[in-house]
């Protein structure tokens, strides 16, 4: 979707270009009704996805009963399903996140002691609005306002890794047990890795200019946020996130479809199965530089699990893709020295490795 940035409509009902913006003057009841009606339409569509995909596959000019049909069916069914689930999850989380802000989270975390502080930071990382483009202001804003370095890292690890998109899609596609496991172990990695970084006392390994910033915290004027504003925040989140990630999702589903239709199960079991001890480290090493958000990786995860890959190996892969990525590391290089980045990557990578091994051992 293209949003022309320089053709700004005038007038207070149209603050910036968008595809759907009901006038602000609608009464709150109309907004509520709109949300309920949209949910009903969503549910009706979702209930008809299976017959829809069967129909599409039946009319396509492809050989029926073969591997190609398997792959195409996976793609035709999963694409609308994942996109619809994503839209729902992102909307709900957009509303939830309107109750939180990085400034408020910072105030909750400032001066916290390590341990409890790490746990609070990782948990708040799930619900606090965060985008990697403001990772640097957030990092400096936290550290300069007295949030301990290790606690800041717990937040910074959990925010991209344990996000609503990952949890919502895992829940919908792979089941609540896997989603809950991902939540618990993801928080665990963020808490422990942040705690270790804190114990190492690496404040001297921040870039020199970061250590000199002692800004304190700005006192923002109170802004009234109505129920309608929260619904709008949900719509805005859908507009922004779904527009950004749908390409990744389609690519991910295409990869998943290829695995589903063509990857031989015995080969996958040999490479990513429980018996191959080296598969967990390999998954982590491959996953760290990769950048895909959770939405793109989950259809692949679903297909891998269906083909008999070990759950711990797959979770480790997913965690290393989402928690550590080359673009984020490059952004953080502005505030962290190479040495501190190396420690950060090593500690988080080791944590994910432990999760993978532990999981494969526990659920053998």
């Amino acid at each position, binding site marked *: 979707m293209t949003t022309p*940035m*320089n053709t*700004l409509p*005038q*007038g*207070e009902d149209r*603050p*910036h270009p968008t595809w759907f913006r009901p006038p602000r003057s609608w009464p709150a009841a109309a907004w509520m009704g709109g949300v309920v009606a949209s949910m009903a339409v969503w549910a009706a569509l979702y209930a008809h996805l299976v017959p829809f995909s069967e129909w599409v596959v039946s009319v396509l000019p492809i050989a029926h009963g073969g591997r190609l049909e398997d792959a195409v069916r996976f793609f035709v069914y999963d694409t609308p399903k994942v996109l619809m689930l994503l839209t729902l999850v992102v909307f709900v989380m957009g509303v939830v996140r309107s109750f939180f*802000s*990085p*400034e408020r*989270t*910072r105030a909750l975390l400032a001066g916290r002691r390590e341990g409890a502080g790490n746990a609070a930071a990782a948990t708040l990382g799930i619900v606090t*609005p965060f985008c990697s*483009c*403001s990772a*640097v*202001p*957030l990092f*400096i*804003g*936290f550290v*300069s*306002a007295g949030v301990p370095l290790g606690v800041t890292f717990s937040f910074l690890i959990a925010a991209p890794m344990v996000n609503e998109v990952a949890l919502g899609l895992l829940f919908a596609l792979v089941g609540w047990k896997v989603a809950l496991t991902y939540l618990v172990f993801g928080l665990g990695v963020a808490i422990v890795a942040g705690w270790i970084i804190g114990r190492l006392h690496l404040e001297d390994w921040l870039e020199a*200019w970061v250590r000199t*910033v002692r*800004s*304190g*915290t*700005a*006192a*923002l*004027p109170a*802004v009234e946020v109505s129920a309608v*504003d929260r619904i709008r925040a949900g719509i*805005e989140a859908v507009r922004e996130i779904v527009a950004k990630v749908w390409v990744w999702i389609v690519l991910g589903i295409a990869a998943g479809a290829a695995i589903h239709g063509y990857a031989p199960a015995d080969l996958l079991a040999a490479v990513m199965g429980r018996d191959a001890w080296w598969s967990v480290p390999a998954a982590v090493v491959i996953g760290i530089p990769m950048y895909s958000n959770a939405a793109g990786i989950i259809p692949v995860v679903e297909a891998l699990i269906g083909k008999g890959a070990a759950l711990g190996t797959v979770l480790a892969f997913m965690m290393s893709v989402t928690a550590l990525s080359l673009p984020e590391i490059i952004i953080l290089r*502005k*505030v962290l020295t190479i040495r501190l980045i190396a420690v950060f990557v090593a500690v988080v990578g080791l944590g994910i490795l432990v999760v993978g091994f532990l999981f494969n051992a526990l659920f053998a």
Partner: protein
Amino acid sequence: MKDVKVLGPGCKRCQTTAEMVQAEADRLGIPVHIEKITDYAAIAGYGIASTPGIVIDGTVVHAGGLPKPADLAKWLAA
């Protein structure tokens, strides 16, 4: 002349925020001078943790996400 600073590393939202401030000021007939602050150290100096941020005549009024036009009008008129 109101002195408005838009704090942000140059992301799309920061650009949109600056345009919103200009549009709202034009609508209200308030002359403004908008300056974009993109330097991380300078942004941090204002004590915010998320961008875009808005500073009007030296006071931080907003941080994180796009502002609401109604709030912008209130801050500009104050």
